[in-house]
């Protein structure tokens, strides 16, 4: 029984999540083929332990992302009782398109998988967990960092297949990323500053970390009221915005009840405050008692290191 993994690439090389997907497949004891759209990362894929075969699919249609074209090119080459991909935006679209072409069901963003197949995933934006049983053949996309990565040391055979697939989506031009930062109400990660930042200019430290994480920058009411430079649109709290990000980082915010009302439903809360008795520590999952001057440079350094790996 074969499992096909559709690999994920990033800037032309193999994305680390691909090794995690191979790891998940390997724990099910399947013979694993990795299919590389556009050929990106195929030689790295061949070195993942447990991979039997790599199919590098190449052609002009892979110059830009066209889901239907890619799916038409890949579907005939993708086989097996189980097809896996990452649950990135493109990973999901592609596997859903391929699954429909093959007439097999697809389940997305799975965090746990055992043979059978029994899959676990979160639904309602994480408010509930779902367990489903899926009949083979089927397609499943896996969430990053949920499965143990397969090691290296493999030496799979790479087969190159050239395809010429008509493209129906043409990229006219790349648009400059919006210069304004993400709005707090839309972000998965928010870093907020309070009056403890001392000066609105110090929010630049928060901006730097936000840039690293692709986060939005928020503020407490105290900061908004005290400083003209901190606009009301950044305010999180009773009379500001209510937010439910995956991660809320509160820096120099005491945690008054009005602020908590706006962010207490965040999935995870990291608080940095020099006052060990600050009420924010009562709701924080991780609390660091430190001045922001000491903590933020270290945070920036270690986040940069982690994210570059």
């Amino acid at each position, binding site marked *: 029984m074969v499992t096909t993994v559709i690999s994920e690439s990033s800037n032309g090389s193999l994305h680390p999540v691909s090794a995690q997907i191979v790891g998940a497949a390997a724990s099910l004891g399947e013979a694993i083929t990795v299919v590389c759209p556009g050929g990106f990362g195929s030689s790295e894929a061949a070195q993942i332990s447990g991979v039997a075969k790599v199919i590098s699919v190449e052609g002009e249609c892979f110059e*830009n*992302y*066209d*889901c*239907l074209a890619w*799916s038409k090119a890949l579907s005939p080459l993708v086989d097996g009782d189980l097809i896996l991909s990452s649950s990135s*935006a493109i990973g999901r*679209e592609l596997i*859903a*398109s391929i*699954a*429909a*072409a093959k007439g097999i*069901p*697809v*389940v*997305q*963003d799975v965090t746990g998988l055992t043979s059978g197949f029994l899959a676990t995933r979160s*639904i*309602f*934006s994480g408010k*509930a*967990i*779902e*367990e*489903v*049983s*899926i009949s083979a053949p089927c397609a499943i996309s896996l969430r990053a*960092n949920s499965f143990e990565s397969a090691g290296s040391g493999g030496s799979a055979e790479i087969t190159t297949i050239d395809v010429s697939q008509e493209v*129906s*989506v*043409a*990229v*006219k*031009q*790349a*648009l400059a*990323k*919006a210069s304004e930062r993400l709005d707090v109400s839309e972000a998965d990660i928010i870093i907020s500053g309070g009056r403890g930042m001392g000066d609105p200019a110090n929010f630049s430290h928060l901006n730097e970390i936000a840039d690293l994480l692709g986060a939005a920058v928020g503020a407490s009411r105290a900061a908004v009221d005290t400083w003209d430079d901190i606009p009301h649109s950044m305010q999180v709290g009773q009379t500001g915005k209510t937010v439910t990000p*995956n*991660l809320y980082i509160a820096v120099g915010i005491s945690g008054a009840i009005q602020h908590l009302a706006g962010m207490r439903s965040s*999935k*995870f809360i*990291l608080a940095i405050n020099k006052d*060990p008795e600050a009420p924010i520590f*009562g709701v*924080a*999952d*991780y609390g*660091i*008692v*430190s001045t922001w001057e*000491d*903590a933020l440079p*270290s*945070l920036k350094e*270690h*986040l940069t290191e*982690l*994210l570059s790996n």
Partner: protein
Amino acid sequence: MGVAVLLKQVPDTTSKISISSGRVDESSVTKWSISPYDEYALENAIKLKEGGYGDVVAITCGPPRASKCLTEAAAVGADRLIHIVTDSSLDSIQIQSILSAAVKESECEIVMCGKQAADTNSGSTGPGLSSSLGYSFVGAATRVSMEGGAVSATRLGPSGPEEVEVRVPCVFTFDKGDSELRRPNVRGIMMAKKKQIDTLTPEDLGVDASISKVIIESHSSPPEKQPGQKFVGSESVPEVVNKLREEANVI
């Protein structure tokens, strides 16, 4: 000509989700709404209609209560309303077969829906339909426009936002964009009240809703949050960063 908009009714995203007897308890849901990303699809569809493209056909597949979505869509400008009524829990093949049959019946060459529904958070329907209908696909679009027969869109591509040109027929899935969602008004609400809803069953469209290849075994609440961990001094930052990745999986 015409735009088919696929709408899914979900518990309002601000609702508390409660579990009882291993299943999400629907009776405790106080407000049902159109899935938020689908609202952006509807807004863009109506904009195309206002540009002269054709009628907007709003389609939903779900239990009887889902017809409310269609009336809400009519109140802001949807012309034709199709409700495929089913109480069954459907897998991706079933739902896509139903919706593609409905789209074919509507003869619409442009299909729009949200990039993912607020309940399953999956995002399979759009790309799956593109494949089964053989329609082009553009995902995570924030704007679609038509100029002299050519369709262009702004979408989030692999390296950032980009402007694309698309061959029709096409499926677009939508992300939240800059477009403000239009509000209904009393006139729209009163006209919507009078609008006929075409009601079908999955069987009418040749789909057996009874046998699913994906069976829900159980629902449960997310694990209780661990008690908060407190660290003293900035030396703890590396350890906390590690925990954010390993324990919390948020970065």
